[in-house]
């Protein structure tokens, strides 16, 4: 979690660093929209702890935490975010379209559309007789998109090894969950497909770890899909530049930050000392710094490279 947080914090800093004086979303070393996942680390870490090479993830527009937790190379990912030729996608994809075939990781900027794709990856895994699984990630807002429904029915019907993750961070841009979703838990919707569904409260990484373990085991055993909704926290704006004027829960945000909370628990239980946590943070900072240096040192693509890769 700390590694992800240190990464997102640094990207936050670098993203804003050179957009002034007139703040221009397209300017700077990191251009375009930026959706950071700070506060949602427990979801990524708790789930990915159960995954290995060959397991697939389709993530949404807010992908960094799942990418890093699943093992996507930080250097190549950062170079992609910087739009460099050494990036995962040679600068063509960017932060919302990260593709790492080695780790079967991908993300998409279109809400909920990764859900059906994960079903297809799981279908291929099943047809080939492997025990691999596909994880599909989306937000609570995405759970009201038609693709969510079609994918859950398909996965349950065909008993596919898929784990559907819903990160409920209370908000879909400016729209609170109560204004988007007719019921209080998407775990209940799983029942409509005869699929096990659980909701993890309180952004609890250990509870996520347990729920995900059961779901992954079930999928690997050929017993079909599961749904896990995780009540998590969007620590920052929807995208960078979002003033969050609409946001009624800002005052509670800091105390709900899962990292200090979990650190305190670990220290109290004697699992870790403050010093060890500082070490973890320092190691992460060094790795992040190296990734950023790598990105900045990498070449930018030539304009005509844009004409390549339309067809294989």
């Amino acid at each position, binding site marked *: 979690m700390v590694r992800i947080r240190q990464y997102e914090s640094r990207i936050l800093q670098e993203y804003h660093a050179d957009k002034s004086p007139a703040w221009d979303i397209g300017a700077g070393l990191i251009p375009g929209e930026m959706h950071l996942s700070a506060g949602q680390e427990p979801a990524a870490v708790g789930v990915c702890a159960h995954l290995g090479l060959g397991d697939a993830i389709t993530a949404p527009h807010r992908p960094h935490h799942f990418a890093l937790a699943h093992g996507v190379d930080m250097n190549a990912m950062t170079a992609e975010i910087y739009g460099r030729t050494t990036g995962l996608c040679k600068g063509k994809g960017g932060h919302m379209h990260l593709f790492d075939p080695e780790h079967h990781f991908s993300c998409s900027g279109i809400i909920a559309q990764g859900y059906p794709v994960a079903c297809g990856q799981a279908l291929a895994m099943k047809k080939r007789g492997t025990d691999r699984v596909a994880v599909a990630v989306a937000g609570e807002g995405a759970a009201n998109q038609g693709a969510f429904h079609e994918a859950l029915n398909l996965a349950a019907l065909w008993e596919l090894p898929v784990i559907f993750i819903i990160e409920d961070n209370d908000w879909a841009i400016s729209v609170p969950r109560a204004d988007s979703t007719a019921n209080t838990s998407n775990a209940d919707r799983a029942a409509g497909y005869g699929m096990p569904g659980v909701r993890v409260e309180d952004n609890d990484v250990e509870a996520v770890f347990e729920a995900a373990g059961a779901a992954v085991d079930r999928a690997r055993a050929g017993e079909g899909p599961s749904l896990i909704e995780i009540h998590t926290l969007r620590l920052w704006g929807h995208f960078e530049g979002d003033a969050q004027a*609409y946001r009624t829960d800002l005052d509670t945000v800091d105390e709900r930050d899962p990292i200090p909370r979990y650190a305190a628990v670990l220290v109290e239980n004697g699992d870790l000392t403050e010093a060890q946590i500082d070490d973890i943070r320092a190691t992460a900072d060094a790795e992040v710094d190296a990734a950023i240096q790598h990105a900045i040192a990498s070449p930018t693509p030539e304009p005509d490279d844009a004409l390549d890769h339309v067809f294989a």
Partner: protein
Amino acid sequence: MTATAAPTRRITTAKAMAEAIALEMRADPDVFVMGEDVGAYGGIFGSTTDLFAEFGADRVMDTPISETGFIGAGIGAAVEGMRPVVELMFVDFYGVCMDQISNHMAKIHYESGGGVKVPMVLMSATGAGYSDAAQHSQCLWGTFAHLPGMKVVVPSNPYDAKGLMASAIQDDNPVIYLFHKGGQGLVWMEKNPRSIAEVPEDRYTVPIGEAAVAREGSDVSIVTLSLSVQHSLDVAEELEGEGISVEVVDLRSLVPLDRQTVLDSVAKTGRLLVVDEDYRSFGLSGEIAAIVAETDPTMLSKPVSRLAVPDVPIPYARTLEYGILPTREKIAAAVKGLMA
């Protein structure tokens, strides 16, 4: 265009859109707004700025991320005689709701033999230029214009944005209103000064289906739309210094398409450059060239020149993106190519 005498002040395209919607909402209780983040947020690209404060949640409705659901709901409300203004946040998302748009919104009037009307506006953000990559940077107006039953308007400046929005809301037909993010005059995006201009305060309309000659010229006709009009005008001013007289035709609406204004301009100049930020093939640039080819190819003293996105998805990195967008530099080069 009754309002030229009325008081004016300089506002952005985004503000002009929102103002037009507000004026129609005050005038007609059947007009309401639906979409994602159109309420307190005011629309991601400012198209509904301040509407929520004035009209409240009943008439400015935030929706779930269910485009098929709420666009379909807009159609249902329109069929019952209301006049919904529905926002699809980015036009790139059309694919999750295209059935409601092209099989229902656009066809119900025809299928019903004229018995049912669908007076609805579907507005959406288009365009690239700020590294939003392949799924958030398209124009796609050619895609909508190809399919019968919906009008397609594409304003290029604040005055037209307000007047065309008023016409769209008052129209008894479904109207797709496509605005360019880069032309909204947003504080957080690079802007062309032409995105802020004088706009009358009161209610007026700009008729749908009439192109505008944004600038007169005698050597080359640039036929274009949306943000590319702003770029083309910049280029025309610059090339005037080099003794090249460029006429800029702003299509303003693709359906209905003002063929005559295009033909008159090409008849005058004999040289046609189509500048289009949509994909090059099977779209707008081909249609404009075809209008000349099927009317009188001998009008042309030079082969038609098309400057559009060269049939590739929009890439992320700035060098790549500007490698495929119709920039001022490429427009100027294309004009010079026609003069060579």
